């Protein structure tokens, strides 16, 4: 099982001091977190993609390429890559390039983006969100698997005799996760292609997450990719820890109360009860996270959000150290208990598997899509 962190890259003033980091400070902080994630033994760093303030991560492959050069084993991913407003040709090229630079340590999570104005800035319309996700990914999928592509769709200019370069490293496309909070259409798409499905998880109650993942698993099996319990599932999580759980709540409360996403709404206590947000001791984080398995079954990837709402970098680095030292080792051990042998790990590039002395799990080029 893989553990990591994902960042939305928000530039938010620290509510306890009123000070906001500069864009440069925030970008460098994200890099520092990625490097620390590798240092403390996590597996994945995923960057968000946004094209509007107060976010800074508009160019994930630039950042991930830089991080790739400074790390050895960290898997570089996204949360999410906008499949709607990005040109699928550019996604194919950028992430194949990143694969070559990072020795295969690359996958990506596709999402639609929920900010209406971003679509017209890129010549699109949010009302086409699902059709764009379907059509663009259909093209992206082919660009990584066919050397010469003739393609015609409704939402992008046609391609005749087009070759996306560089070709995927060793002919193995980056593994793709499809992320969606509430659209069953995206769970269906992930199942159709036999790709991974990631539920952000942190903003919604468990019964909703369960319905989304169950749909994906059932349809994964329907499309012939394997038994439902072998589908590739990832979840988000959101934590803040101190050894003393009351200290954690005291310290995190102002960040919760002023966070752009839920400030002014429910109390921290209510929100913790209704969503996976866990503010408390490392043991509480362990217990809560282990409970996710009861909701979605044995899964493959757990990403934590730890660096938002204006939390200062030194505090977030401490959180990462606690994750690496106190939480993730226990989670690895506990999640392995009772996990059936036929439940696969998340696919990684064969070079990544080889470097870890594992059998390759990523499908070679001609991985099956139902005819």
């Amino acid at each position, binding site marked *: 099982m893989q553990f990591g962190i994902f960042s939305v890259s928000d530039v938010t003033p620290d509510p306890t001091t009123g000070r906001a980091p500069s864009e440069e400070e925030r970008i460098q902080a994200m890099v520092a977190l990625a490097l620390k994630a590798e240092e403390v033994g996590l597996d994945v760093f995923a960057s968000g993609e946004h094209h509007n303030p107060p976010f800074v991560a508009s160019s994930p492959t630039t950042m991930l390429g830089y991080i790739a050069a400074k790390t050895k084993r960290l898997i570089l991913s996204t949360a999410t890559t906008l499949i709607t407003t990005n040109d699928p040709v550019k996604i194919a090229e950028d992430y194949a390039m990143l694969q070559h630079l990072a020795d295969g340590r690359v996958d990506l999570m596709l999402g639609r983006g929920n900010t209406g104005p971003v679509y017209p800035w890129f010549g699109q319309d949010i009302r086409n969100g699902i*059709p764009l996700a*379907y*059509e663009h990914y259909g093209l992206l999928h082919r660009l990584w698997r066919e050397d010469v592509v003739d393609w015609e769709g409704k939402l992008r200019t046609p391609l005749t005799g087009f070759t996306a370069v560089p070709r995927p490293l060793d002919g193995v496309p980056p593994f793709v996760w499809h992320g969606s909070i509430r659209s069953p*259409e995206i769970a269906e*798409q992930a199942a159709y292609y036999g790709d991974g499905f990631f539920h952000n998880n942190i903003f919604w*109650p468990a019964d909703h997450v369960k319905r989304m993942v169950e749909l994906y698993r059932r349809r994964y099996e329907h499309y012939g990719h394997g038994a439902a319990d072998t589908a590739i599932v990832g979840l988000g999580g959101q934590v803040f820890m101190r050894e003393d759980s009351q200290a954690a709540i005291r310290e995190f409360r102002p960040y919760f109360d002023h966070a752009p996403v839920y400030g002014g709404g*429910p109390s921290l206590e209510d*929100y913790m009860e*209704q969503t996976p947000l866990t503010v408390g001791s490392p043991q509480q984080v362990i217990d809560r996270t282990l409970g996710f398995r009861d909701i979605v079954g044995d899964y493959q990837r757990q990403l934590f959000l730890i660096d938002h709402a204006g939390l200062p970098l030194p505090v977030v680095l401490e959180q990462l150290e606690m994750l690496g030292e106190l939480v993730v080792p226990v989670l690895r051990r506990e999640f392995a208990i009772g996990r059936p042998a036929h439940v696969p790990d998340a696919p990684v590039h064969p070079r990544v598997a080889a470097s870890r002395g594992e059998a390759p799990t990523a499908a070679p080029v001609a991985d099956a899509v139902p005819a």
Partner: protein
Amino acid sequence: MTDPLPSPARSLVVVSAGLGVPSSTRLLADRLAAATERHLGDAGILPAVRVIELREHAQDLTNHLLTGFPTPKLQEVIDAVVGADGLIVASPIFNASYSGLFKLFFDVVERDGLAGTPTLLAATGGTARHSLAIDYALRPLFAYLNAAVVATGVYAAADDWGTAGVAADGGLVERIDRAASELAAAMVVSARVQREDPFADPVPFEDAVRAGSGDRSN
């Protein structure tokens, strides 16, 4: 009369946005519910009546708006409204329209959640001057939601609760009875509205792609 449908069971859900306890909005809603129950009884139907006071969910409604998801308690209420065979909705008129609390609730009911549901509109106010609010404010809202709104809406001003208003032709009691008989008639003939469950029955991927759209609502 005999029930034209095999099962006489119907659920009648009353949504009241009244604020006071007791409130005239709730009083009107209860009268409408009782009259509707009587008319359904004449048709051999014994409805299960459920009254929802939005005041009890005001905090949860605000939080839903801010967080994007309902508490389990609010979800149960939304499910009851979406699953109703008939609806009575009642709001006080504030500043020439339905109250903010009333709108807040119908803002978080999923699109198409009320499509086809027989619905009776009711409102209360201090004077009769705002009686048209039912037709210029509530009716367009429920038309947008594709609810099957009955022709007669009932507005009760403070005066209507006086003896003269009740006794007179076209008084409140008569209006309540007419509206309730329309709602009951609509509930008797309408089959239970079947809601799509996109989780139980997803549109197959290739069908969605062929349609050029993954959006079933198009």
